[in-house]
């Protein structure tokens, strides 16, 4: 049987509770990825158990704060800092917040604009 590789769209009000549920189900965090949409960000949080993977897909407006998941998954801090620094996603309460100094780059939020 093919391993699961599924994208699950999710609303902000269900986001943290779903992440907590994943944590209780002993899933590991695979990766966090931001993509640019017109005036919005699309955030993908991948979680896996054995070979199966589920991706929580969250779409947020540019100025909407996104809660950090480092309370549940402390290992998310590098990828959350990267998402905030490269795209300008407003991620709140990251454990080990580098405040946009994770990378030594000249431009602020270089991935925010396309091209």
């Amino acid at each position, binding site marked *: 049987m093919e*391993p699961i*590789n599924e*994208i699950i769209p999710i609303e902000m009000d269900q986001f943290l509770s779903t992440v907590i549920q994943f944590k209780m189900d*002993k899933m*590991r*965090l*695979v*990766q966090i*990825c931001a*993509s*640019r949409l017109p005036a919005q960000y699309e955030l*993908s949080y*991948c979680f896996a158990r*054995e*070979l199966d*993977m589920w*991706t929580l897909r969250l779409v947020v407006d540019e100025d909407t704060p996104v809660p950090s998941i480092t309370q549940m*998954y*402390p*290992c998310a*801090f*590098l*990828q959350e800092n990267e998402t905030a620094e*490269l795209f300008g996603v407003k991620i709140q309460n990251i454990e*080990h917040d580098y405040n946009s100094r*994770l*990378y*030594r*780059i000249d431009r602020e939020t*270089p*991935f925010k604009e*396309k*091209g």
Partner: protein
Amino acid sequence: MAKRSIVPFGPQHPVFPEPVHLDLVLEDEVVVGAVPSIGFVHRGLEKLVETKDYKEYIYIAERVCGICSFGHGMGYCEAVERVMNIDVPPRAKYLRTIWMEMSRIHSHLLWLGLLADALGFESLFMQSWRLREKILDMFDLTTGGRVIFSVNTPGGVLKDVDAYMLHQLLQTIDEMEQDLRPVSDAFLREYTVGTRLHGLGVLKPEDAVQLGAVGPMLRASGVPYDARKLGYAAYGELAFEPIVLTDGDSYARCELRLQEIFQSFHLIRQAVAKLPNGPIAVPVKGNPDGEYFMRIEQPRGEAVYYVRANGTKFLDRFRLRTPTTSNIPPMLELLKGCQLADVPLLILTIDPCISCTER
């Protein structure tokens, strides 16, 4: 009461070929915390996908890192192929598998040499890298390159191998297997190596999962996850089981990589024996439209390739989550409680690749 101090470690350090910095919080000689700084050489290669044709981007993807270059090219192509529903010819799948396993041998031998060097065991370093040279010669013979191979393309591979090359490859891995045994014994039975590695940086299985460890670091802690079991390329048609050890210490991580080299020899022999005849690529027309999260098992662990396409020749997004990005958080936990003198060895045992991380 122990005296607390902060020792800056890196970004330039004799055991690191690449820049990474740690602020080590010490109580006397014992590490009680570590804050990492990366990003000294961040290149923003993911961004280039917006201005490069998706077929040209392969050459950028494989330049993310000089050790994992084949895997990066393959991971990117496999993601694009899934978006475009391309059925890759069986011969191309087997060739990818052979080159991927050669990359694993090359990477693990490189790491073993670096470990021996960090231990001050120069002859073991030399022997490890002498063996690595043989696999680089086989890359040279079969692809024409030793670092960057440029053999992957959406739809298959660009270069075929003939009977002479396969014969040479099999002969070389037979010789290497014979030569690796005494080197392996030196790593696993030498008193000084064992004393430095046994019990150092123990990672429990539940911590390994929750801290996001991948690859040899995860499997040396008793967790049997190996992305090759997803069945991409020809792995679904080869007989193998992930190598798993349970001690979770630096010695286990070393032993696991040694065993994985022998496993790679076995996988190459299987793949060569089953290598089907036929075309090595199918023509790819049109542009991709859709998205896919592709996972492959790089030598350092699971890597994730995300491709998001919009129907034009330029992709909207390419994201690469490298194994080292995932292995840094567990490494920080491992450092807590170790002696300052063991920090370089402990960092080495995760096999960090800063070039990948600074993609």
